[in-house]
């Protein structure tokens, strides 16, 4: 029987023979991840289990990135708990302060995740690494504690939805527009319990950062993972990070539950309107909606290519009066690269606030919280009610191009109109 990417990766990590979707299998995991919000709970569960040592100190990764730099005493206490656990367990990959970045931007950059691996993380956006061909998925803290202790977890072998993206991308249309379009098509539970596998000429041409953006939002359709084949581009990317990986493709006779086709030729820049990522509209349909804040950053779109897109639009221009533009490069290396390329100067000249790598405002943590009645356009991944602050605030989601263009005008704007 032909296997999908998900089935192939799961099969390589279990002794049981995978016969098809629905089967529950025990698998070995390659990497286990948690952050400053989820690790404290995982550590408590780990101790309650009676576990004394993590299964491998070089395979457990702890990144303090959500409420950091610590926003208050309670979050500082949480980070302290994680730091002490990391020290006691001699965990090799513990990241805090100037070494830390938004976890899902940081791990690929450090070469800690790659094709064919199973990565479990106590963070729903762990699915990002599917962009590199890793079966990566979010779990809760106690499942993560179990994986930390045993290096194993269980999965129900998922059905896979094949997403084919054909054609050629129009100007200012990005990976973010592709994934938002898809979520708009299938809905926020369209891939519930399932894997999304991406193929097609647009996907083959897409750079790794774009693939990471798409995989990142698989969870926004309810997906267990968003998977891409590991091709030459993937291998070149991971080689640059010091890894030697093998290519990985699904079998030709793989069985898919359904096929969704997207024609890129007809795709225009889109935004997801409040309060669900599935409320997707073309920018042209909602242009003119007034905004108070723009956030460019996060595990979805805080990478160097996103900052380059923003700079392309912002160069030599000023942010509209009354609009707060907050730009958070997702990792210290991205920050440095942006500095080297002169992007930060463009941002500062435009009147943006450039902040440290942090998840911060995306989840309403800090560094850009919204008051009642305020509206934000963000390159983040969720626009649930109250996600970025007041229950009476609103969040729209878009690419960095649209976010930057809108920051200049103070209303939702197509970048071609700048």
């Amino acid at each position: 029987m032909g296997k999908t990417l998900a089935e192939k990766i799961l099969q390589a990590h279990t002794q049981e023979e995978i016969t098809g979707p629905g089967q529950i299998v025990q698998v070995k995991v390659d990497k286990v991840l948690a952050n400053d919000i989820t690790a404290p709970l995982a550590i408590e569960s780990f101790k309650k289990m009676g576990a004394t040592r993590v299964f491998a100190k070089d395979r457990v990764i702890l990144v303090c990135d959500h409420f950091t730099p610590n926003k208050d005493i309670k979050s500082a206490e949480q980070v302290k708990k994680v730091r002490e656990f990391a020290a006691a367990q001699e965990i090799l990959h513990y990241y805090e302060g100037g070494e830390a970045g938004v976890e899902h931007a940081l791990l690929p950059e450090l070469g800690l995740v790659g094709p064919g691996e199973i990565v479990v993380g106590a963070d729903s956006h762990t699915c990002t690494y599917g962009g590199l061909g890793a079966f990566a998925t979010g779990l809760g803290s106690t499942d993560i504690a179990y994986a930390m202790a045993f290096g194993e977890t269980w999965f129900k072998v998922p059905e896979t939805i094949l997403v084919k993206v054909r054609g050629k991308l129009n100007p200012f249309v990005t990976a973010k527009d592709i994934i938002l379009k898809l979520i708009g098509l299938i809905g926020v539970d369209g891939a519930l319990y399932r894997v999304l596998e991406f193929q097609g000429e647009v996907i083959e041409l897409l750079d790794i950062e774009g693939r990471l953006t798409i995989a990142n939002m698989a969870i926004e359709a309810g997906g267990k993972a968003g998977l891409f084949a590991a091709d030459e581009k993937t291998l070149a990317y991971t080689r640059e990070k010091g890894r030697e990986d093998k290519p990985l493709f699904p079998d030709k006779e793989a069985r898919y539950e359904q096929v969704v086709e997207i024609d890129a030729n007809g795709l225009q820049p889109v935004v997801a309107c409040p309060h669900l990522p599935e409320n997707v509209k073309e920018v042209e349909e909602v242009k003119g909606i007034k905004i108070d804040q723009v956030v460019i950053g996060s595990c979805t779109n805080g990478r160097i290519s996103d900052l380059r897109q923003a700079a392309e639009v912002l160069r030599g221009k000023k942010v509209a009066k009354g609009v707060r533009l907050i730009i958070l490069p997702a990792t210290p290396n991205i920050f440095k690269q942006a500095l080297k390329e002169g992007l930060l100067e463009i941002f500062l000249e435009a009147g943006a606030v450039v902040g440290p790598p942090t998840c911060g405002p995306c989840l309403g943590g800090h560094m850009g919280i919204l008051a009642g009645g305020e509206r934000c356009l963000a390159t983040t991944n969720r626009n649930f009610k109250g996600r970025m602050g007041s229950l009476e605030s609103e969040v729209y989601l878009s690419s960095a191009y649209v976010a930057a263009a809108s920051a200049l005008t103070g209303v939702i704007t197509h970048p071609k109109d700048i």
Partner: protein
Amino acid sequence: MIFQGKAHKVGDHIDTDAIIPARFLVTTDPEELGKHCLSGLEENFIQKVAKGDILVGGKNFGCGSSREHAPLAILGAGIPVVIAHSFARIFYRNGFNMGLLLLEVGEEVEKISEGDELKIDTQRGEIEIVNKQLKIKVNPVPEFMQKIINAGGLINFAQARIKGA
């Protein structure tokens, strides 16, 4: 086991930010989290809930973040059971691991109205809507998951494995 309580209905796609907004994630204490349960949906939601009451959701209940604080907040608020059309997968695993009973019933969920008196018999796999004299059948969980339930949750399951090793 038998659970009995009043139904509190919420809509489709109740996300974990609605169940427990991120600003409250600076603690892991269920009681503290419980005080803010569903405050991301409605400011004082939890004040209308009595201990033992049952939450009834629509499609994709618990979507969004992986925060285990979400099932903890529900348990901390004194709600032992959530019934829904469907659950988001990370939330489902979390609830299951935390000992929050989650019952996925599909379209049958429409039979339940706000304020209905529900009686749940886990042995028989049945939800009874007492005031309507209606019954909803619940499908059993897969065998491996039942093993975790029998062990008393994932922490106990792990404990037994560590002791056995």
